[in-house]
């Protein structure tokens, strides 16, 4: 009887460990996407994310000029293209990246559809600093 009790405790401890381990695999994932910028081009032009997914964008500026990252739907991109904001505070989905530095911002994709990311410093979007995000 005594042995059974100890065995039961042992099994309990093991089950608890397995349970904790299992909980690790179901915790909400935060994806990190590293965007390198060289010669005023993002290293990625297309991304695919899941609805509700939170993405941490790490922008590594390898150019000797400033860049920025703006994530959002097209109306947001249009607003920034004609905007006059020289510097973006660290609000979700918008970050300025000084020359040769790395900056990051996070964005949660709440709805399905097409989103965009890009740089809106003068001439940069037209030059090709843009990409598309498909939210599935």
């Amino acid at each position, binding site marked *: 009887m005594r042995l059974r009790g*100890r065995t039961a405790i042992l099994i309990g401890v093991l089950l608890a*460990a397995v349970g*904790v381990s299992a909980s690790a695999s179901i915790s909400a994932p935060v994806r*990190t996407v590293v965007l390198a910028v060289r010669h005023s081009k993002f290293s*990625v*032009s297309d991304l695919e994310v899941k609805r509700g997914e939170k993405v*941490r964008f790490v922008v590594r500026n390898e150019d000797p000029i400033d860049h920025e990252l703006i994530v959002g739907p097209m109306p947001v991109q249009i607003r920034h293209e004609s905007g006059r904001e020289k510097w973006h505070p660290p609000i979700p989905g918008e970050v300025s990246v000084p020359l040769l530095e790395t900056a990051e911002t996070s964005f949660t994709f709440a709805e399905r559809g097409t989103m965009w990311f890009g740089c809106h410093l003068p001439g940069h979007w037209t030059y090709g600093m843009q990409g598309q995000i498909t939210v599935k």
Partner: protein
Amino acid sequence: MSRRACVAVFAFALVVLPTSSALACGGLIGPNGAVNLTKTTTLAAHHNGVEHYVTAFNYAGGGGEFGSIVPLPTIPSKVEKGGAWTLQRLQQETAPLVQKEAAAFATTARADSAQEVYKTRIDALDITVLKGGGESVGIWASDHGFRLPPDAPEVLDFYAKRSPYFMAAVFDSKAAKERGQQIGDGTPIHITMPLRSPWVPLRILGLGKQPSEAVTADVYLLTDRIPNLLPAAGSGFEIERRVPASEDLLADLRSDRGMEWLPPFGMWLTHLTINSTAPQLRYDLAINVDGGAPSPTRAGLVAPRTPAPTPVPTVAPTAELTPIPVVTGDLAAAPVSQTRSTWPLVLAFTLLPISAVAAFGWWRWGRPRTST
């Protein structure tokens, strides 16, 4: 009226009359990242192993400070104010032909600082000759208050692979105004460089231009022999004229400031017109005046043998969720990594051996003891 006076009057007319083409040089950059350049006129003269590169600024908009970056094939032996009418006199020489045929054309780490190897002031222009890589020259420009256009990093790297020398010219509009200069006036610059074969940077002319925007320029060559060009005419530029330079022309040019080195006769005049776009104009003009073939490397058509190391993007660990992406151009696909909370796993792996030790101990403790 003396010949000199005639030339001066004609040059003045060329500058003042609305039909005259504006002059400019290099790739101009400004606080808003763009300047409305109209046209560039350049003379690349080569005599006795020395290139005399004469160009001038004239832009059609903006205020405050503007700068220009001109890539150089080697360190110049002299940078001085250019002649007062050299470029205009060359335009005069070829203007009739142009009019006649006009209808036919439509590291992830911060790089070392750029080294300032030469500084001088010419009128309202602060001239600095820099030695460094594309990155460090770009940083130098940014540190000096100029916002480079988005194509600048690639263009500067393109040139830095061939020569580490650049000339930055900062045009101070305030100083120009104090001198009585008007926005739009040109300041000619004369760069003297010992060089076996002449060379003319062309790609830099497209700096900051929109893909559909025209890049137009007049390039004049004065050489001891008929020059061989690379690339060949037709790919964005045409040879308007290639003739022995007249003694009248050479005499007029020799009478201008800093042009006395020109021989009185025996030179060839070549007039090239650039009519291209930035995406098309991805080369420079390599010239051979010894009868041989020009260097494709100097033309920018072939990469140098020992190219500067290109920083390779570091790739972060990629986990199971890897929905990536389409690779663009020659850039590597972006690294994607997964971030999760790891403490539960650590706890689990810590608990497992403890549980095993505890179980073994309890088993040993609870086992019936036998006496001997």
